[in-house]
């Protein structure tokens, strides 16, 4: 599922890909800055990042809609080079769906087959199969204008999948849907991908979406690829401050590296934490809110690292309670399972916040 398996060539390989946009007046923008990654066959891979981070540009380069300024892109080992999109074994699901308004659903879905001169009889069977796959069987003769957003999205999917591409590229396809539909479609897409076994490369800015659906995620910011890992690894062991901050919520404890196994927090506390960074390097210790526990002052167990502070805010979320705890030099956010009102701390309480050293990650940047 990840990397190379069974000696098969990886589905997508990007090596040193750079994309620079510039106009003649000299202002240049580097949209994609030296991105290299490998996507395995049959993998559901997401490119995740904020708007403008270059993820869509990267996707478009794989599709052939943009040409890289430098670097190479290979699909199953074959160098794509300057090949235009109509000569690449990939298909794209566009953010706006880009369905052809003057054609019926069936004609839309069959367009790629027509362009590849698949004979009519074969086409019909393939189109029907694809339309059934996305559960749009009864709508084959409708036009896009007569469909809802979710239905159009399925047609766009069918139109791409019917061509059995080696890689399917999806550019924020669920962005225009409302929340409930989006969650539903996420599950459906994931199942679909498992069913057809095609490699999916999915672009999104919604970290929840990426974490839910992907086998692996590539986090990008400002044109650079920051970390490529499974959702769990990215969540538990983010490599940079940006990644830690972008995925879920987290706390940052500023610290300095004291030695190979120790860091010193800003308040002087010492923490046992292994790292490769040189002594004196400025780092941050990240702890997820749900890894922190709040105790009455002095009641924390001994094998956990503790910090003393005072409750500044209590937010009740129904299934959880968020405490904002002020400690000497900063503010910590702690997420606790919902407790009965009697057990809860209140604003002004003196408390001790504790965590296990294994549950933190060290980041730079």
């Amino acid at each position, binding site marked *: 599922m990840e990397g190379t398996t069974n000696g098969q060539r990886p589905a997508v390989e990007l090596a040193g890909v750079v994309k620079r946009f510039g106009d003649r007046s000299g202002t240049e923008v580097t949209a994609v800055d030296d991105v290299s990654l490998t996507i395995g066959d049959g993998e559901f891979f997401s490119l995740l990042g904020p708007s403008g981070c270059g993820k869509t540009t990267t996707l478009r380069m794989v599709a052939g*809609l943009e040409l890289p300024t430098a670097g190479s892109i290979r699909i199953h080992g074959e160098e794509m080079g300057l090949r235009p*999109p*109509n000569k690449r074994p990939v*298909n*794209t699901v566009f953010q*706006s769906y880009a369905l*052809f308004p003057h054609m019926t659903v069936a004609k839309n879905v069959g367009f790629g087959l027509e*362009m*590849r001169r698949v004979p009519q009889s074969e086409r019909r069977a393939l189109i029907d199969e694809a339309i059934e796959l996305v559960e749009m069987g009864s709508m084959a003769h409708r036009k896009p204008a007569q469909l809802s957003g979710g239905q159009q999205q399925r047609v766009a999917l069918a139109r791409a999948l019917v061509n059995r591409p080696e890689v399917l590229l999806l550019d924020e396809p669920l962005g225009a849907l409302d929340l409930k539909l989006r969650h539903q479609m996420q599950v459906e897409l994931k199942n679909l991908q498992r069913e057809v076994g095609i490699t999916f490369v999915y672009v999104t800015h919604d970290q929840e979406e990426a974490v839910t659906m992907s086998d692996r995620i590539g986090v990008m910011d400002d044109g650079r690829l920051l970390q490529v890992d499974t959702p769990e690894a990215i969540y538990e062991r983010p490599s940079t401050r940006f990644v830690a901050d972008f995925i879920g919520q987290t706390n940052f404890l500023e610290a300095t590296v004291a030695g190979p196994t120790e860091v010193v927090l800003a308040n002087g506390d010492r923490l046992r934490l292994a790292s490769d960074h040189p002594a004196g390097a400025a780092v941050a210790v990240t702890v997820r809110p749900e890894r922190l526990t709040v105790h009455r002052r002095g009641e924390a167990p001994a094998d956990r690292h503790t910090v003393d502070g005072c409750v500044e805010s209590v937010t009740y979320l129904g299934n959880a309670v968020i405490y904002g705890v002020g400690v000497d030099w900063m503010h910590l956010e702690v997420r606790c399972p919902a407790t009965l009102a009697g057990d809860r701390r209140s604003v002004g309480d003196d408390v001790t916040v504790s965590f296990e050293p294994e549950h933190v990650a060290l980041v730079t940047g």
Partner: protein
Amino acid sequence: MSKGVAKSTAEPQGASRWLLRGHSAAVFAFFYAPIVVLCIFSFNDSNAVGNWNGFTLGWYEELFGNDNIQSSIWVSVKVCVASTVISVVLGTAGALALERFRWWGQKAFDAVLYLPIIIPDVTMAVMMLVFFNETASWFNVIPGINLQNGLEKLVFSHVAFNISFVSVVVRARLANLDASMEEAAADLYANRWQAFRRVTLPQIMPGVIGGALLAVTISLDDVVVSSFVAAVGGTPLSVYVFGMLRKGVSPLVNSVSVVMLVASMALVLASLVISRATGSGREER
């Protein structure tokens, strides 16, 4: 954000409402009264124009029997069709080149493309007259082209200003098109020509047809340029009528006018019908 139909506060109240209604009715009467009067008097059995003297179809009979008028109509039709076809092809190609590509000199071309729209027709007429005068010898070298007696000068001139009108209309339509559709076509294995023919063209068709109709109207309407470049014996109807008008008002002109009006209306209706048909999305095959 309520745009479009003005809501309650904009709806004129009381006296102003009736003033507005009356005003609008008056303006519409102003628009149509002369045309209506013209139609009525084309049936007037009298040589003078003012007084009603009885109903007659005589003027129409004379119109259809008049050889000069018939040949003028024929000239107008030929010039109109030829110039429309050429200007639609060139105008659409120009619109595509400007909207879908970026190349050196594009801005200059864009500016030049606007000139024929704003240029006064007198200046245009002068330009073409002078041009053909100076270059007649060059053109006549080309076999088949006979500037002296043929309709070439008319066609060339009409195309010269119609390209811009067609181009403006098609560009407006192109600009509204979702560019990702052409990308989708490419993604689905279509080459540039296939993408154009199967995806772009069907969607700009209303624009192309609108541009064509505009070209037809302008070509038939044109008086000044045509009168400057018309060759002997190749007089379009508008120029012929103009000549008649200088000589004086004649009821014959009325009947010609009515025929021309009816033709224009028919064209407008046809365009509305066609745009309805293509707008609602012709089913592909």
